[in-house]
């Protein structure tokens, strides 16, 4: 039987950790959540020389203090799950700061393999890293890798396997100097009274963390009878005094190590700094940022449209075939008007959404995303957010669900809450079908500008809402901005494709369940009571629409639109599917002429409907994720009510203004 080896991959953000993980596991990945918290967990397996490696990707962290949920997750995994081997991925061109995490991993007594990634860059720069010396000084294995070209991956796998065959190391001790060491000893003595606890966590490590004022470790003591004693001891002095000393000693340890293993470690102006001279330039930075965003959306549409044509044609053919070959009228209607039309309306936009996720992955992997946060921070700060909130908001253009999940990178609870509440205003991919249909139908050649305008409106509403929330709900200052600008890298195609697939898959899963269910419900309501004309005012759906029509009548929306909007809550792309169903045209290309022919539709109403669709209550999926991530029904209902109210008011304004202008 093959022996199982538990491997955890750790490392600073932006060092190629994901690339290494992808190279180690290939495409066989399982994406889930870490229990209890909302940090994404990626797992994969790899067979290597008769062993089965179960590999877990830990969140990227600079340190293992409890600064953010990511760090707590990484640390708890190492402590609680006791992986057989921890692989730390390091940026070879930036060893000093990367080794800070190494020093903490060593203190925890992990069985450590270092993957010195981007070693090609370091060598090109003239750095010469003495691997054997590094290994013997730290008691670890070290492998040079060039992950985006697959270099060193085999050697890394060999090293992981052979590491399990050697004796486990004893925790590495960093000397913190006399005063701190005395405190550590005293704390170790107290902790030693609870053998249950020290069996689980190394006593010295806990003592060090307690001295650093680590609340997460303190909370681990809550069920222990020594908690009082520890509290008592810690209250006897101000431990912030020792923070400098402890960080300093760790860097001192690294400083003593580095010259022995790395001869050069040059610090010239890096190529990234040269690029940044242009990309973050005072005058060029913002125009470049805007053109990149604009280019990303142009690309999404330009590349997506031919696919849309193909998918539309295929379902058109399928619908025709069904109508021609199935005799039972209701079954033909269910299949044709319901399922095929519904599936088509949704699948039509999958190419766009995949391309958008791909573009976001490229920006993220190249290192530009951090620049975007850097450039946007001041503006975001003024609006009560911070530069990092920008990234989830940008992802919101793809899908609100992963975007809201991405707010987990925000350390501050208030920042996070506000970002979650406003992210749904960023126009997600699912709203795009509605724009494409309506703008394409009523604005012809101007459709692109109209759609761009909607995206801008979404951003403005998000920003103003954030300001409002910061003033009235989550009062206070946005959290500190302490962020690395990573070196630019050529984005890896495999990584970007995998990211696109993983995120796109989440979307498809949603399509497969919630959305198709919603579309079938629409069909049922539109077909019954038996005998009425499909989707007419006499059908169930017609009655429902007429019931709520007065609510949207001021906006100029008729009952059909009202119905489409109700079902759009299931998922916004259903607005198109339901319109297709209600107009009896199915999805695809025949809906446009039907809309143009309907006298109750006009360009002004189309604009209003697009604005309403952009802003009103986000889809079930997003609402559910807000509930899950905020952990409160209150915020979920608040978001739903707030966004719908904003949508109603702005759609009304839009229609009124458009009637004057158009």
């Amino acid at each position, binding site marked *: 039987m093959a022996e199982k080896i538990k491997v955890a991959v750790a490392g600073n953000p932006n060092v190629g950790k994901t690339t290494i993980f992808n190279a180690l596991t290939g495409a066989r990945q399982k994406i889930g959540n870490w229990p209890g918290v909302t940090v994404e967990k990626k797992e994969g397996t790899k067979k290597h020389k008769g062993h089965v490696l179960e590999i877990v990707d830990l969140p990227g962290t600079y340190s293992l203090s409890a600064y953010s949920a990511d760090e707590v997750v990484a640390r708890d995994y190492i402590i609680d799950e006791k992986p057989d081997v921890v692989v730390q991925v390091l940026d070879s061109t930036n060893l*000093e700061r990367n080794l800070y995490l190494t020093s903490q991993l060593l203190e925890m007594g992990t069985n450590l393999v270092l993957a010195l990634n981007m070693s090609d860059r370091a060598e090109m720069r003239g750095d010469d890293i003495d691997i054997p010396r590094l290994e013997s000084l730290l008691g670890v294995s070290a492998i040079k890798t060039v992950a985006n070209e697959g270099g060193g991956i085999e050697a890394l796998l060999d090293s992981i396997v052979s590491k399990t065959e050697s004796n486990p190391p004893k925790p590495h001790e960093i000397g913190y100097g006399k005063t701190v060491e005395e405190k550590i000893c005293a704390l170790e003595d107290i902790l030693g009274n609870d053998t249950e606890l020290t069996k689980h966590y190394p006593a010295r490590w806990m003592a060090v963390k307690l001295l650093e004022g680590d609340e997460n470790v303190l909370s681990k003591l809550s069920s222990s009878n020594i908690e009082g004693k520890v509290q008592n001891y810690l209250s006897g002095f101000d431990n912030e005094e020792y923070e400098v000393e402890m960080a300093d000693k760790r860097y001192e340890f690294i400083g003593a190590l580095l010259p022995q293993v790395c001869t050069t470690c040059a610090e010239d102006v890096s190529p990234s700094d040269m690029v940044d001279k242009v990309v973050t330039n005072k005058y060029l930075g913002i125009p470049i940022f805007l053109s990149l965003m604009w280019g990303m959306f142009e690309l999404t549409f330009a590349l997506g449209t031919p696919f849309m044509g193909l998918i539309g044609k295929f379902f058109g053919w399928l619908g025709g075939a069904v109508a021609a070959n199935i005799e039972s009228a209701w079954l033909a209607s269910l299949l044709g008007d319901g399922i095929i039309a519904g599936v088509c309306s949704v699948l039509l936009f999958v190419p766009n959404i995949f391309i958008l996720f791909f573009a976001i992955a490229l920006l993220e992997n190249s290192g530009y995303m951090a620049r975007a946060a850097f450039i946007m921070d001041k503006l975001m700060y003024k609006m009560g957010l911070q530069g990092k909130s920008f990234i989830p908001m940008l992802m919101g253009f793809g899908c609100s669900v992963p975007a809201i999940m991405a707010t987990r990178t925000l350390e501050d609870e208030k920042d996070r809450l506000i970002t979650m509440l406003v992210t749904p205003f960023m126009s997600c991919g699912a709203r795009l079908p509605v724009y494409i249909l309506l703008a394409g139908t009523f604005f012809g050649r101007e459709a692109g500008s109209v759609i761009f305008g909607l995206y801008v409106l979404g951003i403005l509403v998000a920003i103003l809402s954030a300001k409002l929330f910061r003033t009235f709900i989550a009062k206070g200052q946005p959290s500190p901005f302490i962020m690395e600008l990573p070196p630019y890298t050529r984005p890896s195609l495999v990584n970007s494709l995998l990211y696109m697939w993983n995120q796109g898959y989440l979307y498809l899963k949603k399509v497969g369940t919630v959305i198709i269910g919603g579309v079938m419900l629409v069909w049922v309501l539109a077909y019954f009571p038996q005998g009425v004309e499909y989707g007419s005012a006499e059908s169930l759906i017609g009655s429902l629409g007429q019931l709520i029509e007065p609510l949207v009548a001021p906006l100029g929306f008729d009952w059909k639109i009202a119905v489409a909007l109700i079902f759009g809550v299931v998922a916004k792309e259903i607005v198109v599917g339901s319109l297709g169903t209600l107009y009896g045209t199915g999805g695809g290309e025949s809906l446009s002429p039907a809309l143009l022919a309907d006298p109750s539709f006009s360009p002004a109403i189309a604009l209003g409907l697009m604005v309403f669709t952009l802003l009103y209550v986000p889809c079930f999926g997003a609402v559910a994720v807000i509930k899950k991530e905020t952990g409160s029904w209150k915020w979920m209902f608040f978001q739903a009510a707030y966004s719908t109210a904003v949508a109603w008011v702005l759609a009304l304004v839009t229609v009124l203004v458009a009637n004057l202008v158009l």
Partner: protein
Amino acid sequence: MNNKTLNMLDAGQNARVIQVKGKGPSRRRLLEMGMLPGVGLSVTKKAPLGDPVDFKLKGYNLSLRKQEAQMVVVEVTGGVK
């Protein structure tokens, strides 16, 4: 006195850290990122809107909002203004 806080520097100036003031997690994070007494750094650039500011220290780029930069007391060691 030649001591300033980091937010007062201009792009191109070099400085050495003297002290990191303040309390709590931001300070700990700054320390962990290598912003320690004695460490040399330079100001590489400011964001187009003037804030945050990007510094080079220990061979990498760290960006701080001026508010956080204010926590770091430095002495200017040279460089072009």
